[in-house]
Structure formats: structure tokens, C-alpha cells
């Protein structure tokens, strides 16, 4: 367990033989998750949740350590980090120093990791917060306390993604085959309706019988499935997309 808040995982470059760069598909089916949370208890729990769903986990205690792990803490992007295999980043929102939102922005600004899905966790169900994260490119938003069902759902999407893209997502930043398509640029409002085929659905040739969910549909079930605390605030911002609100009120899309 990552009790010291440091990094606890092997980098792909370390796992490979010397000289091997593109070859040797090691555990391409195995999902590697970077978990970021300043609370030790939460870190232990999320790490276990992820391990139990067959993910490899690196758990760090701050946004800075996450950037350090990803090699984004200085200007140069070294070759070593090009082969760093991170399939998902899951981060707490409220952290001292750098918030999960700020970390999300930095990841989305990087060339090596902007395609990596980022999931935000928060104990507070604040719509403006959720909206802001999604607009910045977050894949999903989980309400704490995180449950096994939440992580299993994330995991299912990632398996399809990793298999279909042959683990080459990061090498082709403009890859149109990228399975988890990111949300549209922040300026355009979301106009997804659950019934029609939305332009943002996860494109796939999978013959999986269960319906693919677009990122917004994925997130819409999460905040509603957990009981809302007395102090959790559901704020509304009038100019935000009304359709997203509608979706949030209809649970059971999963």
C-alpha cells in the first residue's frame, strides 16, 4: 500500500527489456491507473477498489506528485515518459495546493497525456463544479464515497478502450481511432439526447451487447445513486445546458 504518499509502481520502460520501445506488448490488457488523493484513508480504499477490479495502481498524495510521476513537472518532455503507460487518472477534487480541477487542466494541456481519461471524485455534489470539470475534458465525475459498482463501471469502459486501440493511443495524439472520444471543445454546448445516436458516443466495433454510454451518460448516474448529504449543495447555473440537467434527473441509464 502506498502509505508514504510516494509513488508505488513500475514504469513501463522499467518493465521492458533494454532497447525495447515499441515491441513486447507486455500486459496491454492490464489497465494502469494513477490515483490522486490527499487523504490516506481514501487512497487506500480507492487503491483496493481498483486492484480488486484488476487494475494496476499507482497512488499519490497530491497533484504535484501526479505531475512528477507523469513527467509533467518540468518543461522538457523526456523520451522515458513517452512510453509511460497510464490508462486512467482518477483524482480527488478538493486537495490542498493543487485541486483536481487544476490537475485535470494540466493533463489536458500535455501532449503525452491529454488523451488519457481523467475521472474526478468529490464528496460534494455541486453542479457548477461537475460542469466545469466536464467542460475541461473530464471523463466522469464520481461522488464520494466511491463504491465498487462505480469502479467496475469505469473499468468496463477502459477494457474495451485498451483492447480496441491496441495500446497505441498515446503514440498517435491525433488518432481518430481513439475510442474514448473526448467531449467537444468547451465552447459548444452539449446537446446529447439519450435516445438518438449522439455524435459523442464512444466509437467502437465491439460486438458487446451492452449499450455504449457517452461520457455524459456515464456521469449522470453517479451523483444520483449516492445519498446526498445535508450539506451537499446542488447549485444551479441558469445558462448551463438544460439537457444535461434532464439527464441527471433520470437515473438508470447505466
Amino acid at each position, binding site marked *: 500500500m502506498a502509505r508514504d504518499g510516494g509513488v508505488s509502481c513500475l514504469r513501463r520502460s522499467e518493465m521492458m527489456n533494454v532497447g525495447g520501445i515499441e515491441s513486447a506488448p507486455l500486459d496491454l490488457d492490464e489497465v494502469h491507473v494513477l490515483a490522486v488523493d490527499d487523504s490516506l484513508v481514501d487512497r*487506500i480504499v480507492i487503491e483496493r477498489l481498483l486492484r480488486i477490479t484488476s487494475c494496476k495502481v499507482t497512488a499519490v498524495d497530491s497533484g504535484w506528485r501526479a505531475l512528477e510521476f507523469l513527467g509533467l513537472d518540468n518543461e522538457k518532455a523526456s523520451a522515458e515518459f513517452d512510453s509511460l503507460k497510464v490508462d486512467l487518472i482518477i483524482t480527488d477534487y478538493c486537495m490542498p495546493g493543487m485541486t483536481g480541477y487544476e490537475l485535470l487542466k494540466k493533463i489536458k494541456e500535455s501532449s503525452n497525456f491529454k488523451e488519457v481519461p481523467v475521472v474526478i471524485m468529490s464528496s460534494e455534489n455541486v453542479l457548477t463544479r461537475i460542469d466545469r470539470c466536464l467542460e475541461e475534458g473530464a471523463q466522469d465525475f464520481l461522488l464520494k464515497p466511491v463504491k*465498487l459498482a462505480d469502479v467496475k463501471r469505469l473499468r468496463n469502459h477502459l477494457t474495451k478502450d485498451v483492447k480496441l486501440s491496441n495500446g497505441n493511443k498515446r503514440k498517435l495524439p491525433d488518432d481518430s481511432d481513439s475510442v474514448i472520444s473526448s467531449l467537444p471543445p468547451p465552447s459548444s454546448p452539449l446537446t446529447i439526447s439519450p435516445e438518438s445516436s449522439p455524435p459523442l458516443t464512444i466509437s467502437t466495433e465491439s460486438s458487446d451487447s451492452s449499450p455504449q454510454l457517452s461520457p455524459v451518460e456515464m456521469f449522470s448516474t453517479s451523483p444520483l445513486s449516492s445519498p446526498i448529504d445535508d450539506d451537499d449543495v446542488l447549485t444551479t447555473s441558469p445558462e448551463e445546458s438544460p439537457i444535461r440537467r434532464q439527464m441527471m434527473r433520470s437515473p438508470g441509464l447505466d
Partner: protein
Amino acid sequence: MDALISQLQRQFRDYTISLYQQGFLDDQFTELKKLQDDGSPDFVAEVLTLFFEDCVKLISNMARALDKTTGTVDFSQVGASVHQLKGSSSSVGAKRVKALCVSFKEYCEAKNYEGCVRCLQQVDIEYKALKTKLQDMFNLEKQIIQAGGRVPQVDIN
């Protein structure tokens, strides 16, 4: 030996259910139990141990921040520790502790000194009470295993 095992299992079941009924635990604790298996048989105990250590540390931070002898009280500092305790108690299913943190947070935001001090005292009592209850529960588990039995899954609903 079987009669002993059954008796212990019954005791364990009743005790566990009572903890939920009395509001010490909520279904996040049940979620934690799902993460325990033969490969990680002490997972819940380990997490709760960390949680209780967290309680000691955070409560001491709160007490320090509420100490008037060092100057004016910084309620935001108190609030920051309360927020952390609220988070971790929520993650382990410590229902009463979490509920106290909710009130505590409100007193911090209102800069209500007496309210904060009261909450601090209550939170201290509450986490210790939970710790005692859980120790008893873990002891029962140990006794069942030592008697050669398996710890039963307890269906709360």
C-alpha cells in the same frame, strides 16, 4: 466445537446488525467488506485502524486551532480538519462521526466558538466509542476463526 462456532457466529451477526441499527455504521462499511477476501482478510481492520489514527491527528489539529490561548481562533483552519475528517469517516462508513462533522462544519462556517468546542468534544467521544465497538466486533471474528469456523456474511437488510 460446532455448537461454539454457531453461538459465536450468532453473536457476531447480532452484534454487527446492532451497530448498523444504532447508527454507528452505514452502508459504506458494507462496501468496505466487499473489498475483503481470503487474499486480504484484514482489509477492513487495516483501513479502520488508519481511520482511527487519522481521527487522533485531526482532532488534535482542531483542538490546537481552537485554542484561544495562542491568539484568535482560525475557524478556517478548524474547518479544514473537519472537512478531512468528514471525508474519511464517510469513506469508511463511520456514520455518527460523519454526521457530527456535518454540524461541526456549520459551526466553523458560522464562527461559533462554543458550538465548535462542543462538537470537538462529541467527535472525540464518538470516534472512541466506535473504536471500542469495532474492536469487539473484530474480536468476535477472531474467536470464530480460532474455533475453526468462518465469519458469516451479515445481511443488513
